[in-house]
């Protein structure tokens, strides 16, 4: 009878799948947990010893951290810096996002384009540009001020306010993209019913729009706050000269001091301190947004919200938002100017005659720069491709897998979000210091895969979640195997999001100074570290020329790719 008829197959494919599942878990665990274990071990070392040398455990470093008389100052600086940047950044971003998404202001597209391509601009470059603009002696804006009024220029780069100001401009694009998504995804009927029932524009904005947006804005605020607490590059460039130490720069200085030997133990202890802080805020973030929203990512589908007609406010709005965009672009313009000079000088008619490509020729002629360009290409392609492949597998198994393995993959791939890059860079340094990997480009790739895996997984997971499960089920019912479903249905439908994620990782890998700087040797210099070294010399035109080249090459990849993605996803909708 039934039992003798064609042998019912056991759940086929399950075996292979769980092997893949364990493999992914092992890889993610190795790249995330390995460095962290090393970090913990190092923080517990007795003074002057190296990890693996001894089994002794000492809490001396933590005692030193907690009794450090500088600790209150560090914490206060970090908190003030982060809160200030977040407050200014999100307020401006909200205003710009509202103008760009919800009004009829001409030039909206320009703002959006600027914000979406901003990821091509490394924060380091912003620091360079602003130093040239507002340093107290020869800052361009200060000189102009002096020429106009005769008095001393009011600006100084070397204050916490300047740090906050510059950082808030660097977070505006991220906040803009997230807040723009909030505006776009809001059901216009909620507002319309407010108007229909007699509310004025002001009342609707205050009683309906703002309360609806508040949870979203709060979560954006916390997200940006975490990013700023973890930020390292701007505090390094602006804060070190200004003697405004924050937690991230303290970690760096302890592990790479200008004079004396590195104190890895103390640095690791500070690193763990910062990690705990960031984790607490991350917990708060998930509480605010709700666990289910972790995957939520901006998507621009569905209804068109109503547009406010600005009427007589059109011109003032354009003027103010134009000014903001100009302020964002100003440091880049200054660098562009500097890169065409042989020796740095202030913009003037006389200097205009000395403009040439000489610096580009000189810099590109150096073999160190040529090597760095090769390394950079290797790094960004390797990091972005490996990250996306690993993230796709991670997202797939954490969503469609089962049991504790899926949950473990999920947690592990998200946890780097809470690990500050400077801490991860330190931990990777400690782990690989005495291996052949140290000094190679591969170690930089590993570092970037680790710090960007969380974002990439989030992108793919949200694409998979938005992909109606029935689309894949329909293929399975038709008799297609696991692999066919993947290659014929899933990948063709989510590749735009995957490509977007790939671009993001590529750009951030090219921008990043943290990992390459901490792991730098003569053999694995990349564009960002060479830029930094030239700046330190100081060879300002050289650093400027490299900055311009880096931004230009990123734009050349990002802009066409984003247009291509936008066209392709518009077609299949």
């Amino acid at each position: 009878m039934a039992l003798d008829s064609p042998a019912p197959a056991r759940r086929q494919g399950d075996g292979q799948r769980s092997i893949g599942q364990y493999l992914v878990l092992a890889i993610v665990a190795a790249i995330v947990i390995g460095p962290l274990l090393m970090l913990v071990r190092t923080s517990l070392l007795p003074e002057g010893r190296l990890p693996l040398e001894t089994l002794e455990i000492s809490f001396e470093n933590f005692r030193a951290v907690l009794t450090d008389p500088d600790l209150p100052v560090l914490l206060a600086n970090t908190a003030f810096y982060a809160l200030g940047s977040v407050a200014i950044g999100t307020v401006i971003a909200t205003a710009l996002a509202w103008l760009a998404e919800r009004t009829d202001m001409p030039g909206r597209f320009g703002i959006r384009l600027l914000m979406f391509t901003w990821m091509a601009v490394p924060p380091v470059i912003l620091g360079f540009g602003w130093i040239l603009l507002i340093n107290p002696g020869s800052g361009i804006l200060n000189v102009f001020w002096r020429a106009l009024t005769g008095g001393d220029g009011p600006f100084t780069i070397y204050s916490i306010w300047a740090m906050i100001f510059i950082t808030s401009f660097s977070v505006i694009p991220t906040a803009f993209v997230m807040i723009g998504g909030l505006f776009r995804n809001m059901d216009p009927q909620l507002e319309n019913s407010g108007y229909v029932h007699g509310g004025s524009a002001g009342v609707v904005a205050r009683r309906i729009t703002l309360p609806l947006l508040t949870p979203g804005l709060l979560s954006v605020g916390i997200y940006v706050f975490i990013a700023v607490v973890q930020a390292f590059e701007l505090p390094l460039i602006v804060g070190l000269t200004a003697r405004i130490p924050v937690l991230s720069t303290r970690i760096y200085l302890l592990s790479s001091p200008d004079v004396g030997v590195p104190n890895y133990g103390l640095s690791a202890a500070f690193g763990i301190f910062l990690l705990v802080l960031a984790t607490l805020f991350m917990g708060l973030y998930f509480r605010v947004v709700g666990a289910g929203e972790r995957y939520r990512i901006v998507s621009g589908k569905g209804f068109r919200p109503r547009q406010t007609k600005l009427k007589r406010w059109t011109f003032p709005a354009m003027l103010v938002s134009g000014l903001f965009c100009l302020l964002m672009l100003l440091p880049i313009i200054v660098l562009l100017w500097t890169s065409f000079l042989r020796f740095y000088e202030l913009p003037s008619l006389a200097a205009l005659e000395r403009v040439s490509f000489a610096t580009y020729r000189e810099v590109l002629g150096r073999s160190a720069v040529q090597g760095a360009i090769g390394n950079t290409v290797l790094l960004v392609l390797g990091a972005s491709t490996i990250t996306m492949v690993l993230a796709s597998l991670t997202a797939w198994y954490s969503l469609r897998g089962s049991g504790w393995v899926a949950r473990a993959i999920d947690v592990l791939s998200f946890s780097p979000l809470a690990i500050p890059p400077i801490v991860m860079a330190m931990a990777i340094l400690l782990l690989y210091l005495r291996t052949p990997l140290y000094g190679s480009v591969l170690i930089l790739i590993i570092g970037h895969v680790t710090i960007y895996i969380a974002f990439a997984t989030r992108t793919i997971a949200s694409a998979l979640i938005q992909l109606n499960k029935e689309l894949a089920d329909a293929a399975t019912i038709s008799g297609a195997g696991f692999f066919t479903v993947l290659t014929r249905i899933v990948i063709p439908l989510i590749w735009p999001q995957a490509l977007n994620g790939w671009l993001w990782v590529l750009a951030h890998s090219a921008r990043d100074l943290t990992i390459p700087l901490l792991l730098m040797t003569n053999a694995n210099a990349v564009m960002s570290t060479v830029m930094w070294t030239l700046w330190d010399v100081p060879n300002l035109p050289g650093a400027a020329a490299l900055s311009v080249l880096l931004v230009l090459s990123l734009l050349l990849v990002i802009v066409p790719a984003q247009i291509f993605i936008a066209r392709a996803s518009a077609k299949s909708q």
Partner: protein
Amino acid sequence: MLAVEHLQKTFPAPGGTQTVQALKDVSCRIEKGDFFALLGPSGCGKTTLLQSIAGLETPDGGVIRIDDAIVFDGDRRVVVPANRRRLGMVFQSYAIWPHMTVYDNVAFPLVYGRTKTPAGQVSPMVMQALERVRLADYADRLTPHLSGGQQQRVALARAIVHEPRLLLLDEPLSNLDARLRDAMRVELRQLVKSLGITTVFVTHDQVEAMSMADKVAVMRSGSIVQQGPPTEVYFRPESAFVANFVGHSNTIPGRVTAVETAGDLTIRRFESPLGEILSSMPSAVGAGEAGLCIIRPQAASIAPGDQAADGSNSFAGIMTARHFLGDTVDGVFRIGDTEFRLSLGPFDTTAEGAAVDLVVPRDRCIIVPAGS
């Protein structure tokens, strides 16, 4: 043939809430070529049952057999994967792949399915399936711009193109507008019947189930509460739930006082607020037990005079309201203290406040257990 035996499925509780028992010991049997409807309110487990049959959901226990081959057996841990069950399915969202043309969508089961179709036969089979759903002219179209009705027919063509052993339809008509739905009811049944494919059809709409199916199973919170041909389910509901879900009914509480047998006729005497009701229909309720008497609004009529002599039940009532619904009039009567609804013809002229005699034949009164 499809046989489902003692199927169980419990979903784990998301975030500390109660677990959901989506299927509680569900059994049913569907003969070859039958059109079988699963009818029930939303959330009762219809989709879960269908997905278990398809292999997209793994039940916790029970047995599923298709054409005598076991595809799932909880005790012996047999699970045939969904892509080896040789089924066709139309999803509630239609699940038309937006990156492919109509032709490619329909060709998918032939090209990528387990049993590969020879390349030369794919095109004729796809075109034949498209012709059956009258979409042959649309073969080269991209799918995102198709209307709802066209998408539904593409989904149907894709589900039948590879001559599946079983066709599963999950609320295929619920996304269509009312007029199209009426037309598709007839067309869908004709199509499936002409192909002779055994079909399981999920719906929450009793009109769809009644008009399309050979056999109906009514589900309620994870269990099948009654199954049988549409007429049987309609005329002989076994519970107040079925009576009210499949059409309307007057549900009158009371108690069976006596069961009398005269010849081959068994009569139950039912004591109720309306007075005594006689029922000649078989029932599970014995003498002395409480029960509910089900009387359809269409079962009763207004007696022209005193002539309820054939043993029909007769009640004196007063019309309290009449609602004109177009093709029928919903008459509300008061019998004693109880409200009673009666479906009248549109030309009926009984006025509000009129005293009338309501007559209900004994074989139209069904007694079901109390609390069902």
